């Protein structure tokens, strides 16, 4: 058994707390994600998937419950400490690519390194070139994001999420905007990095085809986990 990366115990999230329109969207979630896991979160719209992913990604704070990131209680930490944990431990891939248009593809991949080191370095450049080559975009490195196709942008985003070799990559519908072919490519890339680098992935998806190819499927409905099991199909 490998060490647990994140442990959520009885996590609850209420929006508009202490008001008349208070609404609890997560009702006591318990999840443990271990190092190197490849898991996905499925469920209908409004079931709380994105909220849960934002909580795990330290972009929101739970209303109740405990969250251990690498064994450390993180939900009470200050904003700067949570920001640092995001930089060092987590990678993000969003549905709408979200590359910075003011930077080239290569520079986008170098941004996390720039944040960590405070400057662009030769080592970041080499690392970013390697990652771009690994996602098959070695030739596109000097292009601005708006000259890349959706699938290419998402591959750059994956390279960026992996720039600082995070323990866990959180992906919110990473293939939601892509055609089937590009979606397969992007998914295969994530699987590839999961296997070669041992990076854990937690993805939110609507696509049952992709969910079936994950090691573990967590199903959420109306803010509660209704099933959490190893995938039936082999990876």
């Amino acid at each position, binding site marked *: 058994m490998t060490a647990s990366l994140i442990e959520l115990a009885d996590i609850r999230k209420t929006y508009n707390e202490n008001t008349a329109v208070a609404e609890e969207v997560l009702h006591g979630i318990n999840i443990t994600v271990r190092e190197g896991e490849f898991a996905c979160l499925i469920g209908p719209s409004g079931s709380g998937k994105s909220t849960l992913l934002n909580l795990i990604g330290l972009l929101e704070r739970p209303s109740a419950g405990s969250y251990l990131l690498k064994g450390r209680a993180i939900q009470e930490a200050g904003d700067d400490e949570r920001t640092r944990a995001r930089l060092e431990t987590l990678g993000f891939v*969003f549905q709408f690519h979200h590359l910075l*248009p*003011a930077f080239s593809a290569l520079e986008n991949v170098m941004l996390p390194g720039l*944040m960590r080191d405070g400057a662009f370095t030769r080592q970041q450049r080499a690392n970013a070139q390697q990652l771009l080559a690994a996602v098959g975009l070695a030739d596109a490195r000097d292009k601005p994001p708006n000259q890349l196709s959706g699938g290419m942008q998402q591959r750059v985003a994956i390279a960026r999420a992996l720039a600082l070799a995070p323990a866990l990559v959180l992906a919110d519908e990473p293939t939601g905007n892509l055609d089937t072919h590009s979606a397969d490519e992007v998914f295969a890339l994530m699987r590839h990095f999961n296997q070669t680098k041992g990076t854990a992935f937690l993805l939110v998806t609507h696509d049952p085809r992709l969910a079936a190819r994950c090691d573990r499927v967590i199903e959420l409905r109306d803010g509660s986990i209704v099933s959490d099991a190893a995938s039936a199909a082999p990876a």
Partner: protein
Amino acid sequence: MRFEWIVALRFLREGGMQTLMIVAGTTIGIAVIVFITAFLGDLQRDLIKRTLGVQAHIVIRPAEEVARPLRDPPAAAAALPQVQARAQRLRSVDQWQSLLQALEATPGVRAISPIAAGPGIVTRGDSNKTVTIMGIVPAPYIAVTRFNEKIVAGDMRLDPGDVLIGTDLAKDLGVGPGDKLRLSTPTSPGDAYQVRGIYDLGIRNLNRAYVYVGLAPAQALHALPGGVSSIELAVEDLFGAENLARRLRRTIPHEVESWMQANPQLLAALSNQTVMTLLIRFFLALVVAIGVSSVLVVAVVQKTKEIGILRAMGASRGRILRVFLLQGALIGASGAVLGCLCGYTLTAVMSNILRSSDGTRLFTARLEPELYLYTLLAAAALGLIAAVMPARRAARLDPAQAIRI
């Protein structure tokens, strides 16, 4: 800090037209501020020079004589004495030779000129004119008043028996350089003098009112043997004249008058001008600041998603704050560099166009390094302050919400 620089510069470059427009606006604002500052400084110096004419910056005269009734104070209060003010006679500044030495050692004093002045009459044929006869030593007097620049005919020399007169007096009397006049005073029957030079102060009454002779002849004419009626000073710092005068008043027992006291209406006009331009500059700076602020507010809204991504990737609130503060400072500083260039050009061009009634330049453009350095620093600070509100807004964005947009 380099992360902030890189991101701020990229954001500004990405802003394109928006960035160009606000830098252009800042440039114009700063250029006008620089122009007004340079223009006003020169204009005031010039105005003072013209208005004061040959007045010195500080004049030292014997203290006025006061009549004191010899009574006991209580009795005086009860009897309400009527005391007639004393008529002031022409007296010499006491111990003026040693005072001259003390003044030479005083910091801030640029030049010192002893004067023996008093009332007199100029006579040529049947024509008599009342004038003030000024006894001067040419070299120090020129140092104090630049009188040599006013000579329009003949030359600025005062050997014994020479006199300098104004253009209008020369016309009234029908004399020119080389002609003879007679100078007399209430205390002296006078003597014949030769016109050595003719001056023009630009003001007719003054050109009629003063005639200049050497110090020794004047002392004889005014019955002030070896004495002087006043000492005139030029100072290094024109607007510090009153402060220097105040310091002198504490150490010497004479009346000390600065040009500010002698010309209160000029000083009031100047200070009103200064206040007006201060107001104009303040509001220009305010407009520039509001412009920078509003452009950055829009930029924060436009870049909400990018800010969210940067925050999610691990950029702290402080870093986002500094990225936007830096953008404000960079807009301010680049606007200031361009504005200083334009402002200087404007000053140089306007000094060619604006001319006073006699066709000379109203002011001369001068390159003052401090003005431009301070403007640069102040503009960068202004941009920084203008950026505070938008930068805080950017730093406070909730990353989860920002990404969802």
